[in-house]
């Protein structure tokens, strides 16, 4: 039963998970294609916001994290069974595409939608 599982966990879980502010979450991040060294062939857009996920994956994963059951189990294994098994990682969960206008080597101009270029939400996995 869940009761037996959670009772075995030391009560220090609260500070173990650290403050809520450093929990797994989406961080906005914007770059220019110039910074990526691609501006000599990308016409548009000028700025690109890939964003990224960062933060701890607390043992009891809050509902908004879209975490699979496996992540909860892995946390418990790390805590109760074998600390060499790492806690789950904070990674992107949903992505959105981006449209790029670029010049190809032969001078053709290409409009293209690239899938999974912007992280839209995070999860612990």
């Amino acid at each position, binding site marked *: *039963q*869940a009761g037996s*599982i*959670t009772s075995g966990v030391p009560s220090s879980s609260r500070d173990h998970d650290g403050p809520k502010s450093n929990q797994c979450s989406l961080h906005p991040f914007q770059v220019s294609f110039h910074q*990526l*060294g*691609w501006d*000599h*062939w990308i*016409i*548009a*857009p000028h*700025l*690109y*916001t890939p964003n990224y996920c960062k933060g701890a994956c607390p043992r*009891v994963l809050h509902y908004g994290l879209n975490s*699979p*059951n496996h992540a*909860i189990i892995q946390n*418990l294994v790390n805590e109760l069974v074998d600390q060499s098994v790492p806690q789950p990682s904070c990674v992107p969960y949903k992505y*959105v*595409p*981006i*449209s*790029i*206008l*670029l*010049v*190809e*080597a*032969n*001078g*053709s*101009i*290409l*409009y*293209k*939608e*690239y*899938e999974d*270029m*912007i992280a839209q939400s995070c999860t612990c996995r």
Partner: protein
Amino acid sequence: KVGQPSNALMADAPSLPLIRELLEEAPGKQQRKPQVLGHPLRYMLELYQRSADARGHPRENRTIGATMVRLVRPLANIARPLRGPWHIKTLDFPLRPNRVAYQLVRAIVVYRHQLYLAPFHLSCHVEPWIQQSLTNHFPSSGRGSSNTSLMSKAWTEMDITQHVRQRIWNHKGRRVLQLRLMCQQQKGSEILELQWHGTSSLDTAFLLLYFNDTHKSVQKTTFHPRVLEGLIEKDSSLLRRAR
């Protein structure tokens, strides 16, 4: 590795799909961005602005009906000797090897139907250029429609999807779509030798190929609702107990 030029980084990781594609599409750093000016660039910028917002997010209501649009410029244009009142220019459009993952949705040729080459006013149309063939006309679908032209009224778009699909799309090896721009001096001016050298082929016509990226749709298998229900049921019960 901070500071490492991205091309070197890209070369290290050609296996990643996007990097591999970018390597294919991106001219090398040493190669300056090919000069693309004039109508073709304006046309594609207008298409881009209609299809994506300033940050590159595809618009929900975009109408291009494709995930990739390639504007192909004509390679060489050979002015043919005057034949009666017609001035003929053949345009060769090189088509890249077709990647299985891309399905051709539409092929459109955009050309100037009104051309002014001092002191001539010319009216032009485009025909397929098939060696030793009498019927150099597009099938019925080939119709000019200047109303959709995004630029000045001097340009016309003509759908040549059927011609491209039938004549060239499934060819192996090097594929070149050959068209010819037929121009006639407008009434009144006597027939004189026309010097085409005034216009680069870029100014008279370009080809638009619309593709859909089929490989992604294969990868995104959609869960059958029953399967999905089972997953949710199992998932929430275990989650609830652990919580």
